[in-house]
């Protein structure tokens, strides 16, 4: 790492000065060192070194806070555990806050006094972000989104050709030449979004969702200008960049005059657009936002989708994306759907709000720098899956799908991995 300049350090420290409410300093200075967060962390569980304990990660930030913001820390830093924000500290913060945290929030849930640890980790990432220390591979994904409009740099022509191809496929699948995947059609009820990896490499989930919309008789469209549901600036914690990405989808909702924005199966994207988004763009949304999981559950409840679970006879388990269950409020819908769509549904242990991260969250999947750790922490998930005896793992998050695909090979699980839309599409009975 290049030696930090004075300006860089000042930029990092600026995060400590500008929090608008008391949340940051309160949470930063409240840890009672009970240690309950240790076992909640997938990193600490596979590598039980003290530095991987979530409270220790937070302590890096609070040590810097004490050094620059308290009288004792300024005068007798050694006595109060205050530390300089220097090269060594920045390297340690980068390694632990970017390289050893999936921002899954499980430690936050287990914290005995309710410290929002994952929020503090993001504040620490924000310091590093201002210092220009975001791992290169993660920043590269944000840059692709900023410069090309989607995080995989897909050209408009390529996108349109892919959607047309999938439309022909849909027509064959449902045996109706009038079946559509609408593009850029204004005044529809829904604007649907995608994870760019779907059109680029894994389009079965687009076909599946198109079949769901077809069966439900939905009024919907995709937009070529903005369809990317991801926002990796949420994980680099560069709020200016996060705002630009959020604003694009916000503007496209207005442009297309759609009533509801439907978010594709994406954990962090759902959180970033739905819950962080109004703050990023500094205005409340004049439209509704729903995840596709909630929408599919709604279709089933309203009788708009008829499913035959016998079409999914294998044993199925569910992996909950952290950003949907712990910070998304989506706990029951995915279970309700699976109970309607498959014959043999079994839960992992633990599951739901207490679920273990797959290891790919927090931007880890994009960060080659920490690949080895990512695969290592994934063993906990692999063991959970094995214990269920399931042949199929369903997860409403494309990022989790990719991590599970790698775990499947590394730990020889012999499973199939599907999105919720994919398993539902298999079970659809067309009238």
């Amino acid at each position, binding site marked *: 790492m290049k030696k930090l300049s004075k300006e860089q350090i000042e930029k990092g420290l600026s995060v400590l000065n500008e929090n608008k409410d008391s949340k940051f300093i309160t949470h930063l200075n409240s840890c009672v060192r009970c240690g309950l967060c240790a076992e909640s962390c997938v990193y600490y569980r596979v590598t039980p070194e003290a530095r991987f304990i979530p409270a220790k990660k937070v302590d890096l930030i609070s040590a810097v806070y004490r050094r620059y913001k308290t009288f004792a820390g300024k005068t007798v830093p050694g006595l109060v555990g205050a530390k300089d924000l220097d090269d060594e500290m920045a390297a340690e913060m980068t390694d632990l806050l970017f390289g050893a945290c999936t921002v899954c929030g499980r430690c936050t849930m287990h914290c005995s006094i309710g410290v929002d640890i994952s929020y503090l980790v993001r504040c620490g990432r924000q310091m590093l972000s201002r210092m220009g220390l975001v791992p290169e591979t993660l920043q590269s994904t944000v840059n692709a989104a900023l410069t090309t409009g989607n*995080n995989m740099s897909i050209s408009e022509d*390529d996108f349109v050709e*892919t959607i047309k191809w999938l439309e022909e496929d849909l027509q064959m699948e449902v045996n109706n030449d009038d079946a559509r995947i609408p593009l850029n059609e204004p005044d529809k009820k829904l604007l649907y979004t995608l994870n760019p990896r779907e059109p*680029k490499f894994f389009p079965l989930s687009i076909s599946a969702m198109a079949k769901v919309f077809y069966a439900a008789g939905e009024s919907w469209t995709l937009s070529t200008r903005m369809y990317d549901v991801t926002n990796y600036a949420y994980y680099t914690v560069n709020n200016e960049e996060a705002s630009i990405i959020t604003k694009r989808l916000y503007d496209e909702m207005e442009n297309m005059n759609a009533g509801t924005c439907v978010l594709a199966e994406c954990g962090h994207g759902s959180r970033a657009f739905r819950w962080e988004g109004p703050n990023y763009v500094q205005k409340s949304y004049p439209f509704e936002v729903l995840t596709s999981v909630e929408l599919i559950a709604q279709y089933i409840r309203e009788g708009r989708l008829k499913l035959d679970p016998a079409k999914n006879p294998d044993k199925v388990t569910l992996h909950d994306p952290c950003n949907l269950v712990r910070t998304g409020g989506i706990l029951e819908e995915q279970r309700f759907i699976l109970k309607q769509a498959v014959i043999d549904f079994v839960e992992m242990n633990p599951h739901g709000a207490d679920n273990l991260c797959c290891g790919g969250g927090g931007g880890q999947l*994009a960060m080659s720098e920490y690949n080895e750790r990512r695969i290592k922490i994934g063993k906990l998930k692999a063991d959970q899956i094995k214990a269920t005896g399931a042949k199929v793992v369903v997860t409403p998050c494309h990022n989790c799908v990719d991590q599970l*695909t790698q775990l499947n090979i590394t730990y020889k699980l012999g499973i199939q991995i599907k999105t919720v839309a994919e398993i539902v599409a298999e079970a659809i009975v067309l009238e």
Partner: protein
Amino acid sequence: MPTIEIDNRIFEVDGDGFLANPEIWNQEVAELIAKYDGITELNEKHWAIVNIIRSNYEEKGMAPMIRTICKETGLRLREIYELFPLGPARGACRVAGLPKPDGCV
């Protein structure tokens, strides 16, 4: 810089095992990377996929759309996933010697 060793040959790679220097790629390197992933022999279909990915990369600097791979090779989507169990990105693009694509792959 991390390295991987296959059949006594050492390759510099990124953390995900993608070649650090895509220009050193050739058929033999492709076979070795495939072997590392548990694909003991690259058949005609594997090669058709690898070649279209490689030529697209050399021409445009990035991996082709899965649509292009299907169109150019005449293979069905599901066949491609079966041939490269790690998928078109972490599987096929890696064998074709590309840098890791951005995004959730």
